[in-house]
């Protein structure tokens, strides 16, 4: 004899369709022109940074770089829902989130240019730097959330990773711990359909990535990740629940990686341009711009002013970055320990000033 032990449901939310037309009722903030304009500007700024970073890498002035082209709505939507007291733990592809949080363009250029000083954020002092070992930031997020709870602070930890990251054990262990301890941590998965050359459906047999939350006893949901309004709204709901002591959750943001995996990758080896072009029709900037034009009288003049402003800002930041001298060899020992142990200090001497 068989009885039902449990049942679950995963929902998917959206606010604007690909053309920018509203689908159903919009969240209140969508009525505020300033707010939406700032979200749009942040996405434009992110894309401009991306373009410059790729250009610098192509000319040997930056290291390997992973563009967020087409995924700007996720970083901006998530970060714009966060408060200063929250803590961001990004993957290597959430430049938009980092920039919104106050990491400077110059700091990002420095990091991707191969200089540790790029992680010494002047702005969000508690935010984690980019995490390269995939999914290893999720356990950190659990620890950050634990510290917030332990100290009675109001913040929430927000960890971001890709679809590939959901295959790793540390992602799952963190999810399970967050569920067991009801920690205030939000797991954001930027499902851009690819992990380098591996398709989303080859990554897991799960029909959605949101359903992985069920394994940890957390709520999971999908959202249109090219819809910055929907992403922000979903994140606001998640953060509100977490702040309210109702624990964490998983948000799967559906998007598409329009560019190569990184500047070291050649996506034409494993996917057709036709596939990519289809997704260009759904990218997040046009969509929000159409909505701004239709609802908040955005126009050519403002658009051009924004582009000029952002271009100038990015170029100026790139110039400042390029003007920064590499640190001296000795710097590689400066922050190994709070104070260098004698044993290692001796070796550091040997290294000399370089």
């Amino acid at each position, binding site marked *: 004899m068989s009885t039902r032990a449990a049942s679950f449901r995963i929902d998917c939310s959206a606010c604007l369709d690909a053309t920018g037309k509203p689908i159903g009722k919009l969240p209140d903030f969508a009525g505020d022109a300033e707010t939406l304009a700032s979200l749009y500007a942040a996405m434009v700024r992110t894309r401009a940074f991306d373009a410059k970073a790729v250009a610098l890498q192509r000319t040997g002035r930056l290291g390997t770089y992973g563009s967020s082209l087409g995924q700007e709505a996720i970083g901006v939507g998530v970060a714009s829902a966060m408060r200063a007291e929250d*803590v961001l*733990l990004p993957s290597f592809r959430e430049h938009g989130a980092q920039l919104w949080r106050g990491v400077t363009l110059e700091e990002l250029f420095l990091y991707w240019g191969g200089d*540790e*000083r790029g*992680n*010494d*954020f002047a702005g969000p*002092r*508690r935010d*984690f*730097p980019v995490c*390269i*070992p995939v999914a*290893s930031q*999720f*356990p*950190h*997020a*659990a*620890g*950050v*959330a*634990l*510290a*917030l709870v*332990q*100290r009675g602070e109001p913040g929430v*930890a927000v960890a971001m990773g890709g679809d590939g990251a959901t295959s790793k*054990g*540390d992602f799952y*262990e*963190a999810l*399970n*711990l967050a569920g*067991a*301890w009801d920690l205030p941590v939000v797991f954001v998965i930027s499902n851009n359909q690819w992990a380098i050359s591996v398709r989303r459906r080859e990554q897991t047999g799960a029909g959605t990535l949101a359903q992985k939350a069920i394994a940890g006893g957390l709520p999971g949901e999908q959202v249109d990740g090219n819809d910055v309004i929907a992403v922000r709204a979903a994140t606001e709901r998640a953060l509100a629940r977490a702040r309210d002591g109702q624990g964490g959750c998983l948000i799967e943001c559906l998007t598409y990686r329009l560019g190569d995996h990184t500047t070291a990758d050649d996506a034409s080896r494993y996917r057709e341009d036709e596939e990519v072009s289809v997704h260009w029709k759904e990218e997040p900037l046009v969509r929000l711009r159409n909505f701004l034009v239709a609802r908040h009288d955005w126009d050519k003049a403002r658009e051009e002013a924004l582009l000029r402003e952002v271009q100038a800002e990015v170029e100026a930041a790139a110039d400042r970055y390029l003007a920064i001298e590499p640190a001296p060899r000795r710097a590689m020992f*400066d*922050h*190994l*320990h*709070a104070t260098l*142990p*004698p*044993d*290692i200090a*001796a070796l550091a001497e040997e290294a000399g000033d370089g």
Partner: protein
Amino acid sequence: MAEMTMIEAIRAALSHALETDPAVILFGEDIGIDGGVFRATDGLMQRFGAARVRDTPLSETVIAGMAVGAAAMGLKPVAEIQFSGFLYPALDQLVNHASRLRNRTRGRLTCPMVLRAPYGGGIRAPEHHSESPEAMLGHIPGLRVVIPGSPARAYGLLLAAIRDPDPVVFLEPKRIYRTVSETVQTDGAALPLDRAFLLSEGKDITLVAWGAMLAPAGEAVAQLAGEGISAELIDLSTIKPYDRAAVRASVEKTGRCVIVHEAALTAGFGAEIAADLAEHCLTHLIAPIRRVAGYDTVMPYLRLEAQYLPDSGRILQAARDVMEFT
């Protein structure tokens, strides 16, 4: 001040840290109501509450990773890995994060965490419960590796590890958790990290050991004394970064050295000590540097365990060989 075994001294240090520093938090498997499988945290959850002494799910990766995240936020996590044989899933977090968070953020985020783990053989434990991984950990820049050699040193070094602003792996030689007691000043005084302890002075030969190997090494010293050989015994205590100056000074005096560890010989930490001497004290060496270590094979199950672990006999033999070398 009281007579204590090492496990009691560790408990006393943890208890003192919890009392005196609100940032200290303990978590691990079965460390709460059960007090840890070796009772290192016995009574601490009852005394300091389930919020500060937490049982985790069975997840070593998240135990280590959570410690990194919590430490970066200003807590001082003291996490327990139940046995060092189960520490490997935590290694990625130690190598790629804990050891370099300060460095990669230029000091903006730091990682004042301690990862405790019982290690080593000699207690007839099941498979995978008796290995010695200190050499692997000792190769990780930015990480400290400490192994206490007595109850008093366990107390003082664990407090030092917890107070240290950087990550420390604290490996506890479980074989001597309860075998010896000594007077421990439970006054909250820490002992210095990165320093070796001279257990007995001698002029003919230097023995370097740590953890549970100090006992057979001590027996060897006594034996040798009977044979008119004056042996100096050094407890390395901090494996990484270790006290090169102390070891060099001793060998420059004695001209002879035998290094003892439980872990397999090849690429064991004894190799680093011998290599350092071969570079910096060569002209003082009267005899070859010998390493008495676990054999280069898998740690056998308990029926052959005693045949694998170095004992005073093997140490003595090596010391005599070195003394007789001409």
